[in-house]
């Protein structure tokens, strides 16, 4: 894959050159497909989400010192300094909004606004799932709200 799509809707992506494991959790199942392509299955989901409750929560980015912020991409070392995880531009901007000031509702609103040309339902769905990917990787803490 390429981190950055050339054009069109670029959903928030996280990628790695390395196998990813979560400490104190079931490791990702890594499956090798044809031509050596590897897919990483994220253990046993799904997350059942009460959306009205989630929307008022405030996500806060963790591991601030571990981040590298470039113009078009970002990288964080996971879980500590072991494995670099690369973020595409959309994911990078999404993460920057997780600054402890914005609610998830505000972040979703911003994300939809940045992708006006694309299907709103898809954009919202990707954004919500991306929040849970960050949560699963323990890259954000979710605070506050009612």
């Amino acid at each position, binding site marked *: *894959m*390429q*981190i950055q799509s050339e054009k069109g809707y670029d959903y928030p*992506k*996280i*990628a*790695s*050159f*390395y*196998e*990813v494991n979560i400490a104190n959790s079931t490791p*990702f199942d890594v499956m090798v497909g044809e*031509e*050596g*392509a*590897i*897919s*990483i*299955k*994220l*253990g046993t*989901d*799904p*997350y*059942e*989400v*009460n*959306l*009205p409750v*989630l*929307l008022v929560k405030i996500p806060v980015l963790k591991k601030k*010192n571990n981040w*590298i912020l*470039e113009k078009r*991409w970002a*990288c964080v*070392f996971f879980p500590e*300094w*072991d494995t*670099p*995880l*690369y973020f595409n531009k959309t994911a990078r901007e999404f993460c920057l909004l997780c600054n402890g000031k914005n609610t998830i*509702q505000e972040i*979703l*609103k911003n994300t*939809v*606004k940045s992708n*006006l040309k694309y299907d*709103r*339902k898809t954009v*919202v*769905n*990707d954004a*919500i*799932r*991306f929040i*849970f*990917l960050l949560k*699963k*990787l323990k890259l954000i803490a979710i605070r506050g709200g009612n």
Partner: protein
Amino acid sequence: MKVLLVFAPYEFMKTVTSNQFPLGLGYLASYIRSKGIEVKIADLRHAKNNDFAKLLTEYQPDIVGISCMTTNQNEAYEIARTAKRILGNSLVILGGVHATFMYEEILKKIKEIDITVIGEGEITLHELCKAWEAGLSADSLAKINGIAYRENGAVAVTPAREKIQIIDDLPIPAFDLVALPDIECYFKNSRDLPVLTSRGCPFKCAFCSTSVMHGQQYRKRDPEKIVDELEFLINRYGAVSFSFVDDTFTVDKERTKKICYEIIRRNLNIKWGCSARVDTLTADMLKIMKKAGCKGLFFGIESLNDNVLKKIKKGFTARKAVKMVKMAMDEGITVDTSFILGLPGDSLDNSRKICDFVKKYKINGRVLTNTLQILPGTDMYLNPEYYGIKYSKNYKSTWSNSISFSEELSFKALLKEKVKIQYANHANHSEDARLYEIPYPAVSYNEAEVPEFIGP
């Protein structure tokens, strides 16, 4: 008697995806088989949880020989413990670069390892097998060159093992003796097999243990016999490509050309790659190599700063390196390069130079970067004061901060430079599938609850 040779996995670099047959063990296996000894190879990089224990229980080897480098020593020790636990009285031997330089520490620390092999292992292993068959004794061990063992609570070392001068006399590595995994595992991505055409390296890079291990003796094989081996592997295993895994394949220019001419003359129609030094190639050589099927070259460049290159005794300049990389790429050859971050005299500016180099020249192969590790036996290990470094011998299973960097060159700062280089390299390869996307988890929610005001 039965021997099992084990290749320890590399926990620290499992994603480097080296999928090649362990050639060193192949040489050991074929040599002792030619002397009438039953032997199998277990490559634990490809083993599942209980595979190794099952193999030990079923095969019941008398001798277990484990290959060990500094960076996978902990995995090798764990294998030794498992072997001793399951087999009880079998002999457990450790060989390879780490065993060669750290035999005393290993024998003092790891009680499950009975003997370490120092230097080249073929003849030594055979002599150990004979000694075992004759009922191993302190006297018989003392007569075997190139080993260390425990005797009366102390570590005894025998005289150095003489190096094999004519490598062509060794039988072709025993690919057929792999018990674990299935031989087809090595052909998963392509029918590529490793071939060794020389041993040793005449250069003296301060961070590298190869020339120390081989005493700077460059021992080369006969071009015709090398190409005979290629033909054998094509006919026997359907190999279509080869990796010449010598430390530096191109040391002897005339020999390199002869190998190429022989491949062309026999019309083998193969692809191959090799490791080379930028100062051992010429434009003419590149053309001949390309014509003979060379598709990939690996250059260990280490740094693009001449002062750093001089300090580590690399023996060429950054200008030379850049010129040769460009020349090889212009010839249509894929060029992999490697750099070491945090070398003596290094700076973050130097790392950025590497990043700029990757972008500017659109390097068409992989750019491998790692932070400096001080390996036993190297000049840096033996003379840290000269290089202005301090290091810890406490190697971890990952690329670790085993040396002290300056404040600017902290381990974390270097890692950040590393990922920038990695990203720049990846950006040159739009078709590259090596960057693996982490999928979203499944999330279920009521779509009707998405407020209308989330949107335009």
